[in-house]
């Protein structure tokens, strides 16, 4: 749910990073946190297991600056990718304005990617949203690993609607910001349309 505060002149949006376990969602947020100036970010909150797998979510509020006198604030969330945390994923997905799907490029994770996309479509539908309409970006992460499938092959399997696609190596930050900006752009364009 986009929250427009006319008194404080702020636009608040929620972006959710979705995708299979160990795909690199948390790493995306950690990188954004690292490179953002202190005045433009809040705390990075990670509710994780002792082995650093996301248990409930990660949360990072960031500020993109002003547009037409409105501050634009994005609340970034990750879901837990492991299959059995589906009820937590549904909770985090509620009220999302845009989705980043972080795919794991490795050949052996293709089925996990496909399963996660269909799980996303299903969970969105349950909440009355259509994956074909919601702002959505595909990130092909782990491009540095030897078993990464070619981009053409991955997009053939994972592309759902001609969404923007970004190659990424999240720990190095490659592709992280372009992904975030692309989803933010779509969210703000949607918002402008809703007037």
């Amino acid at each position, binding site marked *: 749910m986009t*929250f427009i505060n006319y008194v404080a002149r702020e636009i608040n949006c929620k972006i959710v990073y979705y995708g299979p376990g160990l795909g690199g969602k948390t790493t995306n947020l950690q990188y954004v946190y690292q490179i953002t100036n202190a005045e433009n970010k809040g705390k990075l909150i990670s509710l994780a297991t002792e082995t650093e797998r996301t248990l409930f979510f990660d949360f990072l509020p960031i500020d993109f600056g002003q547009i037409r006198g409105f501050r634009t604030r994005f609340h970034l969330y990750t879901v837990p990718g492991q299959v059995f945390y589906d009820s937590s994923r549904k909770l985090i997905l509620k009220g999302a304005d845009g989705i980043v799907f972080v795919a794991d490029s490795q050949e052996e994770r293709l089925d996990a990617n496909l399963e996660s996309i269909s799980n996303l479509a299903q969970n969105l539908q349950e909440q009355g949203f259509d994956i074909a309409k919601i702002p959505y970006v595909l990130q092909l992460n782990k491009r540095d690993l030897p078993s990464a499938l070619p981009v053409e092959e991955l997009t053939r399997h994972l592309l759902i609607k001609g969404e923007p696609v970004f190659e990424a190596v999240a720990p190095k930050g490659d592709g992280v910001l372009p992904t975030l900006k692309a989803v933010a752009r779509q969210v*703000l364009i949607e918002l402008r349309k809703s007037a």
Partner: protein
Amino acid sequence: MSHGAATLGAACSVSSNTFNLHDLEYQRIQTVLTRMQKELRAQLVLLINRSGQPIVISGPAENIDCTALASLAAANLAATDGLANIVGEREFSVLVHQGRQRSLFISDLLKRFSLVLVFDASASSGLVRYKCKRTILLLEEIIQEFQRKIEKEEPVTGIPQFTDEELEELLR
């Protein structure tokens, strides 16, 4: 990121997927929250939405990160709703976390919002519950009245009509 901005402003129109806060409603909500905050000598009272965004904040809030608090409180409430479902309850509409120095009260409000209170652990939690219940009724009235108003009148205007160039400049 500071939470000061949310303290300055907010009030509300609720369309299906955006929530707009305008001055009049903001003032009314702020008044209700401030009264409760004073009566209970609470450290902090927040109205948040269920996506975890702070909407109106009242109280000194020193060294409490309201952005983080709102996000965690909303998640906490959502998780508790999930638990309620599993054991066959419709909801647990109120959560109280009792600490040694500070306690936390989180309550549902119209399924789309939540009232969050940080108060001194020495305060009577019965009194807190009582006041919160009353405050929630008042807030529900304000929000529902506002909702009826916008349903009758024109759709909310004022969504910034920035140009593509301005958007690209923002995302540079």
